[in-house]
């Protein structure tokens, strides 16, 4: 019974994954409609120095870190 439940859960996840991928294929823009994404301020790494410096502060003051990018190497920051 457990095995059947497990298969059913897997099947549901697979269905959801296929649905999401199918959904993605209808999302988006045509190549000539990318003017807004070509803007410098729309780049995901537009303020990467700020983000990196912030991550360093939060890493040294909080119990969890990373997520946006990889956690990366450590330091003995107190």
């Amino acid at each position, binding site marked *: 019974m457990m095995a059947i439940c497990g298969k059913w859960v897997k099947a549901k996840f697979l269905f959801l994954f296929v649905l999401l991928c199918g959904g993605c294929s209808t999302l988006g823009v045509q190549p000539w409609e990318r003017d807004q994404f070509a803007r410098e301020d729309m780049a995901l790494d537009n303020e990467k120095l700020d983000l990196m410096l912030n991550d360093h502060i939060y890493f040294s003051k909080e119990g969890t870190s990373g997520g946006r990018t*990889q956690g990366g190497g450590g330091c003995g920051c107190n």
Partner: protein
Amino acid sequence: MRKKRSSIQESSTQKSSTQRSSAFELASGASDKHQCKRYRNINKSLTIASFALFSAPVMATEIDDSKDMEEADKTSISLPTIASEKKLEVTKIETALLYYQEPDRVTAAEGIFNLQASYGDKSELEGKLLLDTLTGASPNGAAPQQQQQTFTRPSGNGVYYAKNGETPLDDTFKDTRLQLNGNWTETLSNTDKVNLGFHLSREYDYTSLGVNSGAERSFNRGNSAVNLAFGYYYDIIDPVGGRPVSWAPMLFRDDFSSQSEFKQAFDKTRDLSSSIKQTFDLSVGFTQLLNRYWLVQGNYSFSYLDGYMTDPYKIISQIDERGTAQGYLYENRPDTRYKQSVFLLTKGALETGVVDLSYRYSADDWGIDSHTVETHYRYQFTASLYGQIHLRYYRQSAVDFYHAFLPELDELPEYGSADSRLGKLTAYTFGIKFGHKLQGGTKFSYRLELYQHRPQDNGDERVGQLAHLGLYEQVNAVIAQIGFAF
């Protein structure tokens, strides 16, 4: 505003064509002899360029309108050379200087230099150099007391004090750190990219070496992208005075009849060999363009840490039934940690700027979990001036082995830490930033942020004097930064 931007673009196009027509007028004012020579040069250039088109791969070259015709001729003639050679070209230089200040505690200054370069049209290189210095006082983990407390310095040489009622701070906190990062990204095709990077960080008592690599594939006409990345880091920890052995007691010189007797006993509580920590990171990410203005990004990250993760300078108070500290033990943390996090971001292009909103959930097997909500809103005052607001809310639960203090007579737990960063915590950030661009494209930015760090009551039963003392002190830090990019 869109109309305004269009008119700006139009006016710049007009300006540029005006410059071109002015250049043409200037050129037509030259002598006939010069014109004939120029036409001969143009014919020669066109012939060479035609051969070049068939003999070598074509590369787009930007011709500066301000160059005179003679220089333009040279550009055309040298085209076969350019097309056959890959050149290392610096594309962007960014620098920033950050100042971080906690009143009466830590002060940090951090300088960063980031250089981006391209090698041909498929390779990108990035190098980063970071230098930071930290000075000031940091909480040592001991509980405050109504009477003055004395602590032995981590090196075993000398003592420092905490005034009555105040959070005990180790005032000898001083460090300088140098960090170096390099990254190489290679575009394999229109849809695939790979990257390889290294990391090096060195400070007096801590060295970190690492490598990371990743691959990205875009699909769905470039509207969707997935990426996979991994990293490995090897950290070497050499604490001042050696690494305290598990649950080592803090020893005091006054309890020994001679310095050599104290030193002998102190050395028995220390392990002088280097400690190692290894980190394995794995992340999977997904980016999707939703429409002409919005995109979403999602990341799942998994980390496994193995090795020494105890803070060698942090202690826990052992208290009696009156709440009075009878001694201090060096904290002891597990030597493995599994961490997971999910990060979701949406970013939108507005007519007057940009807005983003992100959420991160993190959890690990130490029992800590956290929620982070963050947003940036940028308003473009003019084409070259913007203002930005940054808000962040962070909340975490405590690790399973967090104890603000330990009852003296209780059996010692397997692990324990009184480090407020591992306790229940809430933090807020409020920041503003202004940036402007000069005519040549040079950019300046100025950032000011307030970071409020609020440790919360973890529910430890406070006995005696501890009931009247502030165990969880709030810290307000100021962050100021200037940035420069060209």
